């Protein structure tokens, strides 16, 4: 499910690995072929497992020696107890889910902290294409045409911040990325994608 490629050499993976604490337990929703989980296992000695819907990605996870469950995130995470994990990661697949609100609610239930990464629909190039050319945007973070995109939901950085406020989720960390690296100002205009670390009960950081 990892369709977004913000920057390259997976800068997002590097940032997430920096955020996850040593030896943490981690569940990744939509873990793809398991690149990030393997990185977390090796660099942070994290206890990792994943959920993935694509059979071919399951094979690659098993080949990496990762524990992965072939299942649909949209059907919930009822098999996991509250706060079962130190971290739950939803990176670049939130926008592909049928029910992202349920996935996020479940993620903050089973994880102490949740790391969410998504493409920013309000990036200036998307705004230009929509406003001036009158076309559905195609950007490096949203590289699909309207007819073949796996993305079902489009959200901006601002949308996500408002979502967290409405649902009383604390934003503990954030990073904004574009092709070249980190974006430090005007993220909702200049960042191709965003990473947030949120929790239900942590200290509020922003806004």
């Amino acid at each position, binding site marked *: 499910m990892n369709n977004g490629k913000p920057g390259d050499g997976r800068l997002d993976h590097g940032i997430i690995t920096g955020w996850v604490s040593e030896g943490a*337990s981690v569940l990744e929703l939509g873990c793809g072929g398991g690149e990030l989980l393997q990185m977390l296992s090796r660099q942070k000695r994290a206890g990792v497992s994943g959920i993935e819907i694509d*059979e071919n990605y399951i094979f690659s996870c098993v080949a990496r020696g990762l524990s992965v469950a072939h299942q649909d995130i949209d059907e919930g995470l009822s098999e996991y107890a509250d706060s079962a*994990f130190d971290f739950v990661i939803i990176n670049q697949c939130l926008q592909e889910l049928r029910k992202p609100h349920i996935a996020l609610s479940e993620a903050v239930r089973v994880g102490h902290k949740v790391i969410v990464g998504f493409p920013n629909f309000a990036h200036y190039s998307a705004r230009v294409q929509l406003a001036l050319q009158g076309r559905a945007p195609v950007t490096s973070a949203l590289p699909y045409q309207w007819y073949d995109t796996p993305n079902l939901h489009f959200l901006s950085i601002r949308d996500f911040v408002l979502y967290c406020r409405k649902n009383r989720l604390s934003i503990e960390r954030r990073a904004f990325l574009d092709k070249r690296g980190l974006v430090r100002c005007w993220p909702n205009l200049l960042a191709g994608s965003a990473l947030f670390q949120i929790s239900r009960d942590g200290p509020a950081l922003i806004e």
Partner: protein
Amino acid sequence: MGSVLKKDKNIGIVETKYFTFAVPPDELVLESGEKLGPITLAYETYGNLNEDRSNAILIFHALSGDAHAAGYHEGDDRPGWWDDMIGPGKAFDTDKYFVICSNVIGGCKGSTGPANENPRTGRPYGLDFPIITVKDMVNAQARLVDYLGIDRLLCVAGGSMGGMQALQWAVSYPGRVRSAIPIATTARHSPQQIAFNEVGRQAIMADPNWNGGAYYDGKPPTRGLAVARMVGHITYMSDESMADKFGRRFKDHGKGAKFEPDFEVEGYLQYRGDNFVKRFDANSYLYITKALDYFDLGNGRGLGNVLKGVRAKFLVVAFKSDWLYPAYQSREIVRACKLAGVDATYCELNSNYGHDAFLLETGEQEYLVKHFIANVGEGNGNGRA
């Protein structure tokens, strides 16, 4: 069982061996409280046990299987029932692992079952044979594993009834199993599964030759057993695989008397039924199907609770077209593993073959099994979850 002849890469000629234990007065105490002994287990082994005895894999057969899982018996042109999966370079790689497979107790392929002599009467057990369970099968296998000098198994694996034994091993002997691969199976027989088994049993018992199970001096209940096998075969296939294999085609010589089989599918089922009676004992069919029906690993305590304390890591595999052991039953196993904190990987494979897929659909299954075991072997302890 549709194994393709692949003589290029197999173990070669193998032999069935026998191990006898539980000689009175040290009989095996069964789950029912009854005692059984002496007990003989027929078994085969492939590959070599390594020096620290850490590379042993125990394979379990399904309802009608036997100890002959791989390679060829002298003079046979058909290999063992899982030859596609067991052999040099295969999923259960006999160049690396020591693979064991035994016939279950209650069976009729060399292990003690209702057709064998009851030491108390000097005549075949028949219905004097005690009721056995999957747990009893596993307890008997544990004695064989002891006898072979193996303390911990690298892996226990099987499909269907074999998967139930894998689950039972992981629960009954948590310290002796490093990994388990239950395939196309369930932790608890469903009413539908019990119902199909009951139709099979009723067919056998309705055959006048069955004679209350005492038929060993006369004609066996072949018609009843054949019908039981026909019902079984229907449940092992899928709508799609039947359509592919037979369609609505008629048999070539379909001009017999009224209600002679004229569709290909009818001929196939009759052929399968007729063949089965040559190699299987009707009473064994009754006992083993009953053991399946009694199987309920959670047993009122909840599967998640029963799996607490299990140390094996799991690879659970299901097939999308399997309607006899539907994928939701495998998902229940995985769900319970997660709740119990047992490390579990789950994959639902695409296949048109229905329940039989675990015997036929070996490509992707082989890939999963091979890599999964390799990582157990290296002790890659990923995941507390």
